[in-house]
């Protein structure tokens, strides 16, 4: 059966860290898939969120998307896309699914960040003669930064946990050890891989939570008015 000693042995065996299915390579794959998807989703969702928040048009759409997205199982979405697009395009299909998973929270974060800026401040910026781009650059973005980072944090959590399932459709990532460990009843590999996944997800969550606090503190302790 399984013991802590076995887990320790498995984690400290260099053989489990190197090679195609070593932890190092799987970790890099996991992080790359996550970050690439988050970047694409951010490039799409942030401008749209800002535009909706700024113009006030399409608000119901944002709310509908973010509440409907919670009810869709990420696992099923990924499987369906890989199946419908064909297994040979699975890399593309998985990234597409991950982007789809990441968009709703990022969109909601950008939208509600802009939306929560007091109307006095937004009108004030306009009254000073700022162009729309200047309003976004100097007022909208800095003031909504905490909310946007918050959106990215939720998206990160969703994407990192969905990437764990990527080995089921033939891709890599840290889930590989969990899926293989389950199939081969190798409980040291299973638990060791789960532990690395836990470390990756919690570290990312803590970093983004800190970024959120920093961006918030920068606002409340800014030099403006001093």
């Amino acid at each position: 059966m399984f013991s802590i000693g076995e887990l320790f042995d498995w984690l400290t065996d260099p053989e489990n860290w190197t090679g195609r299915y070593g932890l190092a390579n799987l970790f890099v794959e996991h992080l790359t898939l996550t970050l690439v998807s988050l970047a694409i989703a951010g490039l799409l969702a942030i401008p749209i969120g800002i535009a909706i928040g700024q113009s006030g048009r399409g608000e119901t759409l944002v709310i509908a998307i973010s509440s409907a997205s919670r009810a869709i199982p990420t696992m099923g979405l990924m499987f369906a896309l890989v199946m419908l697009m064909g297994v040979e395009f699975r890399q593309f299909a998985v990234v597409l699914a991950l982007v789809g998973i990441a968009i709703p929270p990022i969109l909601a974060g950008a939208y509600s960040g802009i939306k929560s800026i007091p109307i006095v401040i937004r009108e004030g910026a306009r009254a000073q003669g700022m162009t729309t781009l200047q309003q976004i650059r100097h007022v909208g973005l800095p003031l909504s930064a905490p909310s946007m980072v918050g959106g990215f944090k939720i998206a990160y959590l969703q994407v990192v946990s969905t990437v764990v399932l990527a080995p089921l459709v033939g891709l890599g990532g840290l889930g590989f050890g969990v899926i293989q460990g389950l199939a081969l009843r190798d409980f040291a590999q299973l638990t060791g891989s789960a532990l690395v996944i836990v470390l990756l997800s919690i570290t990312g969550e803590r970093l983004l939570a800190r970024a959120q606090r920093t961006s918030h503190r920068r606002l409340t302790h800014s030099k403006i008015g001093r």
Partner: protein
Amino acid sequence: MEWAAKNLDFVLELSFNHLLISLAPLVLGSVFAFALVRFTPVKLTGTIGTTFSAIYAVPSLAIFVALPAIIGTSYLGPTNVVIALSVYVAASMFFSTRDAFSQVPKPTVFIARAQGLSPLQLFVHVELPLAIPGLIAGLRVAAASTVSMASIGAIVGVRNLGYLFLDGFQRKIPEEILTGLLAIFLIGIAMDIGLWALGKALTPWTSRSAQRV
């Protein structure tokens, strides 16, 4: 949807299991979160909050397979899934329960106390009813994510709608995967409507005052 029609009995059986394995954690997790909010000293709230947001960050499959090493349960089967999902529900309900009760207006509580209500009466007749909208809102969020997350339990051998994803993928039947998606979505919507109706039924005064305005 030819596949769904042919396998209707099977889909219904899986849907029923799916509903059960989502409802149990919702009840257990909410009760646990409520107990934590109600009975832990204020000093610990920050620590519990940080711990819960960290736990919430952990991918569900990782928790499903890490639990046996921590508490010694079997690797396969619904026990780990129910425990893990309960922890997720508790993690999200902890924050909404705390906020729901802190939104109860302080003057209302003071007046009730001045009228001579005992702590239990105060809780049952004043605090709980006024916290219900917040609690229901939190439950709706928790229910939606629990229903969709429960499908991952199929990987560790739970017979729920997630099985349709695994089986459909292996046997290359897209309709099977789409049936699973649709069924989970419908269960989510049904639970959402149910909770909304429950909230309305438990707070009749909100609709009455709305009619007057």
